[in-house]
């Protein structure tokens, strides 16, 4: 009978973390930003059907980087959790904090269980509040820790560099067009600092818009609305925060409900 080699717990955990991080790094990064009227999710995604962002509940959105089948599983688990909780109690009792805790426990248990391989995912759970101060953004790395974020957050392989870029430039009260422009700029920068162009059709954009009259605040931004926003964001940037362009960008985003 062979005796298994002894591996120290530290080493085992470090190996698992490295495995998960490498998996996550293979996918593209995505960013989540607060803007004046809510929270915007921006990522590069060549697929129209397989989403990185989705609605969990009335005010709660979900974003994920990493392995699709694993985060899709977590996403559906989250929808089930939220719907069951809302059905059992009340719609107001479903919160991003509660959901983030459940995700953290789930990821943490999987990460430290020797029987399972660690999930190669990094999640963001965001809830839009009545005002920007009440917005909540939680980042959930692969190991089950929770990070409470403000302003902007990036997840995925290139997250650290993008975060740094966003931290310097993001400010409170940006319009949607400005936030979108900043997000795209951050995502277009490669690790070595060179910039590349991300065409609009490769962008996946969604918002949690607190001004939406519907109870469900999640909305995908696609097609014409997305290109108009990108244009007005660029125009606003060129005129260095020309206030008229900002106002126009806002009416654009407001009037184009599906």
């Amino acid at each position: 009978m062979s005796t298994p080699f002894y591996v120290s717990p530290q080493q085992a955990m470090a190996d698992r973390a490295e495995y998960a991080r490498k998996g996550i790094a293979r996918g593209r990064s995505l960013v989540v930003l607060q803007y004046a009227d809510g929270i915007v999710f921006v990522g590069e995604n060549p697929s129209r059907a397989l989403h990185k962002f989705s609605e969990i509940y009335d005010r709660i959105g979900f974003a994920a980087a990493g392995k699709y089948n694993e985060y899709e599983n977590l996403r559906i688990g989250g929808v089930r959790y939220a719907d069951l909780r809302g059905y059992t109690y009340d719609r107001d009792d479903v919160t991003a904090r509660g959901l983030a805790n459940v995700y953290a426990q789930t990821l943490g248990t999987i990460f430290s269980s020797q029987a399972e391989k660690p999930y190669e995912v990094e999640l963001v759970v965001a809830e839009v509040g009545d005002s920007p101060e009440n917005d909540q953004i939680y980042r959930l790395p692969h190991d089950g820790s929770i990070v409470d974020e403000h302003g902007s957050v990036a997840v995925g392989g290139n997250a650290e560099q993008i975060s740094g870029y966003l931290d310097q430039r993001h400010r409170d009260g940006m319009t949607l067009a400005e936030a979108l422009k900043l997000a795209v700029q951050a995502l277009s920068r490669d690790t070595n600092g060179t910039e590349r162009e991300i065409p609009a059709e490769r962008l996946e954009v969604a918002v949690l818009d607190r001004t939406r009259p519907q109870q469900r605040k999640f909305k995908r931004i696609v097609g014409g609305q997305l290109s108009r926003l990108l244009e007005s964001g660029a125009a606003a940037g060129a005129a260095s925060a020309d206030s008229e362009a900002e106002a126009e960008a806002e009416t654009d985003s407001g009037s184009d409900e599906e």
Partner: protein
Amino acid sequence: MEANTRSTGRLPAAFLTPGSSSFMDFLGEHQPEILPGNRQLPPVQGVIEAPHGTTIVAVTFPGGVVLAGDRRATMGNMIAQRDIEKVFPADEYSAVGIAGTAGLAVEMVKLFQLELEHFEKVEGAQLSLEGKANRLSTMIRSNLGMAMQGLAVVPLFAGYDVDRGRGRIFSYDVTGGRSEERNYATTGSGSVFARGAMKKLFRDDLTEEQATTLVVQALYDAADDDSATGGPDVARRIYPIITVITEDGFRRLGEDEAAELAGSVLQARLEQPDGPRAALL
């Protein structure tokens, strides 16, 4: 589930098991006891007394469909509630109006709304209108045990069929039998009278405004002859709930709009108590 989630902290295995996009199927496997259809009812002598909702009417017009209901709930010969809401949005493009045992019906609507929303979130696409109508059928069927004891729920489902570009109405019986109605439909205790009124007033080329007036006329006639249906309550400012579903989605008429419609119908009835006259030939 809740206790379970709290004790271990992580999502139970059932939550992460790939499977159906239906919330009811998920509940059925994970926590069957909270599904209304699985509730055990003790043997009861006679009929259980509970508030009942009464009349719901629906009419199609080119471009959409109108669904409306009166506001009265009755328990035996008593008025249980004067301002009950019996018409609800099911999702962006459909609505459901309920007659029958109010408590069970409202619960059924809540679960139905959730069922549609859950599917939409999981699949990233909406069910077809036909699919929604069938889902409601299943839910009524699961209530058959209660219906046999007098706790029936008989909804009317109306929606805008995005694929076909028109409004459609589905009616149900207590066993879950579903039938698509042409032009107009009614359900509930005052339905026979409302139906008569709609039959005489319906035309193929109604505008949205005419269609909303038509449903108020029909509800007025139902309230006129059925004691369980409430007419517009001018003193308390309680007016019928009127909803319109078109290509632009679900819209419930505001209090002012409903008051104005009910007001003009009431005014005309002061002159002509039986309402508009149809030609004999």
